[in-house]
């Protein structure tokens, strides 16, 4: 009954139905019950995704037993959205060898096809699960908001877009839902559109994303002109011939079919630009901290599971392309490492709880990029694994921060409250678990995933294309880990320990949140605590993901990477020590020697470091000076030119007929005989001209 195609369609269809139902009925009919369609739709969608995961697992097991294929995938073609025959501009596969199987390459056929493979299945489960919990949490959080129904409609639409994004099998469709996700993020960040900051933040997210989307669109164009198709999968025609998809199994089977060289690098860099925009990597990370202006569940949704993971997913999906170009992975790793360090350095000094978490998200995303940038199968699976675990604990942290915020009457500045552990015990304990996971305390999920990334980097630094680079990146990652542990616990300690301080805005709200909010926290805490260890010790995650066709690419399977990720004891110990050191430093500084903090701050400020970090390295200001101001100047110059030069010319041209008209208008006297006389004189002139 629940076959893979059915489930694959059900997963996005249920949120879509919820969206339509809420949008149609929410305002007039459902009102305070508007959450039901969304919660039910996303919950059922989660169940379907879970079932799908098990089905895929079973299928992977069978595929292993069956004939040798490159990974496992099942493509469900729903319909052909557009089919333009002979639209292509290039000879089939001209840059590379042109195998005889490739026919009909020139048709621009956009298939609306969904695919099921391990990567998609994992993503679907992650997305729907976190989204479901966020939706449940929102029931309490968004209670009595005037736009209640609107919020749930947006959430469901967001989930629909994200599930589609991870399950489509076509670059064009991917792009479409990429944009749809961007649209939903805009709608949700700017949900309280009466607030000028929220509207500005939504706009900023949208505009910054556009830059990345533009790069992504160019990348898609380049893929089309290079490969002659946009499908991921192979298409088997009625004639028995096959059109190779960009990431089709038949192409993956022969590594030589991928285009290499400059074009490949260009494609990868453009895709990377898109991923940077969506996943908030330097230099396009500036939108994410501002996105805090939206409701907290939205922040959780965006940061944890949906939007920002799109870039990671896309790079993982396109790993063969990156691999073919050779240098692209290093670029990914470089950006990831730099972003991770930068964001954690900023997070150290921030005082806004949600903003700290936002920069930590950027930092952790940088970590994932680092893992992907390793370019090896362990690295990529490690990056995806970190994404998976990060989804849980970051959602947990955000929802916990939301819970705190809820209790504090909207105050989120950690300097204004403290010692909340007695008032909010559930939040305190779940938040602690989340912090431990984020700080990669040994035994918690974050520790294992982060450790795998570090292992992958470390291995690359030992033997890889550019060991020096990866070594530096490994050190940077370690430093980031230290800083992460420090700032995480700085925030935690300032919030829940020390003398009890409650801002006056809180009023009588300063107590534990309702069950609909704490229950997701507990669930997420459980997962944050144990899911990493579970998968780490069973090796299930990496093995399962390795059956994704993109990752089952033979070139990935170098001889030592063929087995499961190794437990590199040295790296593990080092990272554990780093994490513990960070936590300890935070404990010492903020719980034992609070005076030292001020002194340290003053000392750092003396050399400008504190101010630099507190001012987020002045990247926004730099953008303002480097981009916005020149653009505004250019716009002003264009306006001036258009207003006075072009319009002046046009007005001048317009003036001539007006002047002529003013002269000729006196002829239009309305007197019949005047017109008759004019006709007669005209005839006379003609006759005279004819005779003379």
């Amino acid at each position: 009954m629940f076959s893979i195609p059915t489930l694959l369609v059900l997963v996005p269809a249920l949120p879509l139905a919820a969206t339509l139902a809420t949008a149609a009925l929410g305002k007039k009919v459902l009102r305070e019950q508007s959450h039901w369609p969304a919660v039910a739709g996303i919950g059922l969608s989660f169940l379907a995704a879970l079932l799908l995961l098990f089905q895929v697992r079973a299928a992977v097991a069978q595929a292993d037993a069956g004939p040798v294929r490159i990974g496992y995938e099942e493509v469900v073609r729903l319909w052909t959205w557009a089919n333009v025959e002979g639209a292509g501009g290039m000879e089939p596969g001209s840059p590379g060898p042109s195998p005889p199987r490739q026919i009909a390459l020139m048709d621009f056929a956009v298939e609306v096809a969904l695919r099921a493979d391990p990567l998609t299945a994992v993503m679907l489960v992650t997305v729907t699960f976190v989204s479901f919990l966020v939706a449940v949490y929102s029931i309490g959080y968004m209670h009595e908001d005037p736009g209640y129904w609107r919020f749930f409609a947006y959430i469901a639409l967001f989930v629909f877009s994200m599930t589609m994004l991870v399950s489509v099998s076509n670059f064009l469709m991917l792009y479409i839902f990429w944009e749809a996700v961007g649209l939903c993020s805009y709608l949700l960040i700017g949900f309280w559109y009466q607030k000028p900051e929220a509207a500005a933040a939504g706009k900023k997210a949208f505009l910054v994303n556009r830059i990345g989307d533009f790069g992504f669109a160019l990348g898609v164009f380049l893929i089309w002109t290079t490969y002659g198709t946009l499908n991921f999968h192979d298409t088997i025609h009625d004639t028995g011939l096959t059109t190779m998809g960009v990431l089709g199994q038949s192409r993956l089977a022969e590594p030589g079919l991928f285009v290499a060289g400059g074009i490949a690098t260009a494609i990868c860099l453009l895709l990377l630009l898109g991923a940077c925009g969506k996943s908030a990597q330097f230099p396009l990370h500036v939108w994410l901290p501002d996105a805090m202006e939206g409701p907290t569940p939205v922040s959780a949704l965006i940061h944890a599971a949906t939007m920002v993971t799109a870039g990671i997913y896309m790079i993982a999906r396109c790993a063969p392309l990156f691999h073919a170009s050779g240098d692209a992975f290093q670029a990914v790793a470089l950006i990831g490492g730099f972003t991770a360090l930068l964001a954690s350095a900023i997070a150290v000094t921030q005082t806004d709880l949600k903003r700290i978490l936002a920069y930590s998200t950027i930092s952790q995303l940088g970590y994932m990029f680092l893992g992907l940038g390793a370019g090896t199968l362990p690295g990529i699976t490690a990056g995806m694994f970190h994404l998976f675990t990060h989804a849980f604990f970051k959602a947990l942290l955000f929802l916990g921060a939301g819970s705190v915020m809820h209790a504090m009457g909207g105050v989120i500045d950690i300097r204004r409250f403290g010692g909340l552990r007695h008032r909010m015990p559930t939040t305190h304990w779940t938040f602690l678990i989340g912090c431990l996971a984020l700080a990669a305390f040994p035994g918690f999920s974050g520790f294992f995933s982060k450790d795998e990334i570090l292992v992958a980097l470390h291995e690359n630094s030992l033997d890889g294309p550019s060991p020096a680079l990866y070594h530096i990146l490994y050190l940077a990652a370690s430093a980031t880990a230290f800083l992460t542990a420090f700032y995480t616990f700085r925030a935690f300690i300032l919030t829940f320990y020390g003398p009890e301080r409650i801002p006056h805005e809180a009023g009588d709200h300063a107590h534990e949140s309702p069950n609909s909010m704490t229950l997701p926290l507990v669930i997420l805490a459980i997962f944050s605590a144990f899911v990493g260890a579970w998968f780490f010790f069973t090796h299930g995650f990496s093995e399962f993901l390795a059956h994704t066709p993109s990752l089952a690419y033979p070139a990935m399977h170098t001889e030592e990477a063929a087995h499961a990720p190794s437990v590199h004891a040295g790296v593990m110990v080092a990272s554990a020590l780093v994490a513990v050191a960070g936590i300890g430093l935070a404990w010492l500084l903020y719980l034992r020697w609070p005076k030292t903090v001020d002194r340290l701050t003053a000392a750092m400020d003396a050399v400008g470091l504190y101010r630099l970090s507190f001012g987020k390295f002045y990247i926004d200001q730099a953008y303002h000076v480097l981009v916005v101001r020149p653009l505004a100047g250019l716009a002003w110059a264009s306006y001036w030119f258009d207003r006075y030069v072009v319009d002046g010319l046009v007005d001048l041209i317009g003036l001539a007929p007006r002047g002529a008209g003013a002269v000729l208008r006196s002829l239009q006297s309305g007197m019949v005989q005047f017109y008759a006389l004019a006709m007669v004189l005209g005839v006379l002139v003609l006759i005279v001209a004819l005779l003379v």
Partner: protein
Amino acid sequence: MIEHELNLLTNFLVVGALLFGIGLIGFLTRRNMIIMFLSAEMMLQGVSVSLVAWGRYFNDLDGQILVIFIIAVAACEAALALALILMLFQRRGNLDIALWHDLRESNLPPYVDHELPEIPPYQSGPWPTLTPAGRRPDLPQQETDYRSHV
């Protein structure tokens, strides 16, 4: 006899041209709508004369037939023109074509006659005045001169 026919043709064409030109002048200068219409008909007459002359010269009845159609069209034109002029007259109480220049450019002033011609005073004749019965009529000198004394 070709000479005779040619001269006939010449004469009639000149007469047709004269009628046409005089009608044209009338159409252009007269401001009474009916006179304008009559002038237009006069132009048609000029054309008709020419057509008949050419038809005779070429021994072709089509000239006369065309004139018949001209007459038919003139009849239609007369019917419609009469109706329209009647309408216009009912609206302005006047047959002056210069009053109907509403289609002029909006910012142009209306046409106004700056000078009006002197109209000769109406010559009223002597009217009889009746006197009460039993009295000798006291007639003015003018009327007594006018009446014959029997």
